[in-house]
């Protein structure tokens, strides 16, 4: 049994009624499929792994992040081109009031509308080599 499957066993133990969703998450996280970083919004995760509801999804993603299966990124989007990120942080608390927008070359004030939560799957995670 490798480290990765042990971690997913631990997720199934934590969410016994979500075994199918955990299994779909395991399939998604399977790093053999990719050699580079892949990323998903919580909304996309919800669509792909189909947990019972969104509250459970956030709990699952939080646990998966703590287990090192995912990495959580708080991304600030450009106010001009709203789909383009301009900075990334581990936590929303670290975001300054203003940022340099690399997409436009301007200093911009950060609002909550510009903040997006992203979950990343890293190719060099511990479980991929276990």
């Amino acid at each position, binding site marked *: 049994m490798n480290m990765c499957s042990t971690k997913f066993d631990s997720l199934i133990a934590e969410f016994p009624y979500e075994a199918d969703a955990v299994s779909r998450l395991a399939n998604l996280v399977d790093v053999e499929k*990719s050699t*580079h*970083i*892949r*990323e*998903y*919004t*919580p*909304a*996309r995760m*919800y*669509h792909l792994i189909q947990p*019972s*509801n*969104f*509250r459970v999804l956030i709990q699952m993603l939080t646990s998966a992040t703590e287990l090192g299966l995912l990495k959580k990124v708080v991304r600030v989007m450009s106010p001009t*081109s709203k*789909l*383009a*990120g301009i900075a990334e942080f581990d936590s929303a608390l670290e975001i300054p009031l203003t940022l340099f927008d690399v997409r436009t070359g301007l200093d911009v004030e950060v*609002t*909550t*509308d510009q903040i997006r939560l*992203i979950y990343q799957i890293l190719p060099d995670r511990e479980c991929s080599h276990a």
Partner: protein
Amino acid sequence: MSDKAKQESLINLIESATSLDVVKEFLRSKNLSHTAGSWQEMREARLQRHLNDDKLTTIDLLKLLTGAEECGAQHVFLYQGDKKRAGELIDRARVGEILKNRDLERLLREADVETMPEVPTIVDVRWETAGVDSSLIIKEVEARNKRVFLGTETKDNRFYKIYTDEPVRAVNVAKLHRDGFLEIRLQARNNTTKYDTDLSRFHRQIESFIPWTEFAEISLDTAKDTMWIKREELSDLLRYTDASVCDQDGNVVHAYTGSPKNNLSQSNAGKCVDLLMKEDAKAYCSDSNLWFKKTDGLSSDVHVLLNGETNEIALPAKCSAADYEYVLNKIRFLNR
């Protein structure tokens, strides 16, 4: 509140919630004289006179207001619950008991007319019925502040942006269908796209009627993909102004029209978006900004944004109840 005062309040609310044309159409449908060049004329020469002549009632005004303020200019969140449980939740005896416990039993007889309540207040609880009750509707009114930019000022080497908060009346609606489908409609704000706080507060407000933890969010990703991929087939129904496709690396291709009146659907810019979807089977349509076109089923164009939460549909402008139902049903159909 006297009946006269209630009618006066209702007419004021109708004036702020809708257009003269909608009121004219409403009066025309009742075979009443309906021409009016201004709101003052509509109020005095039409509505008041028809009320005085008993050709129009307070209930009629309530129905007109309901149609005018409950659809459009909203962010709508869709959920699915258990069908059998939904049947229990919309049961009249159960709802009546909750209303009694919350001292709101009067709403079973008639909706309240609240203009600007001090706290968010449930003003209407009613059922749609077709032989059996097909849905339960709960309506809330809240007084919100709308932040309006006034200008700038420089003082002591500091630059100030000045805003004022203007009170506005907001209407939020929950509609639970007998089959377990739940719509939460929140009135749109003018200065944010995030509704988590409003949603949590409204969920708490209606918790005793509709325990929201029993419902799951409906992902609209399938509808977004289907509508974009089949846009040619659906060209009589849809006009796109923006579309974004995202891949697993987080790269985005976003196409939009120069003019908001143009159509992206058949453009080469739109075909560039297609390319990513063709090249990458896991790419998906992440954001859509589109118009449901006036057709046999719609009285006017309806603008729709699908770029928020997984289960969120935004309708930036007011629309009729019939148009709202049409658009909602189309999106649900395309989400299968």
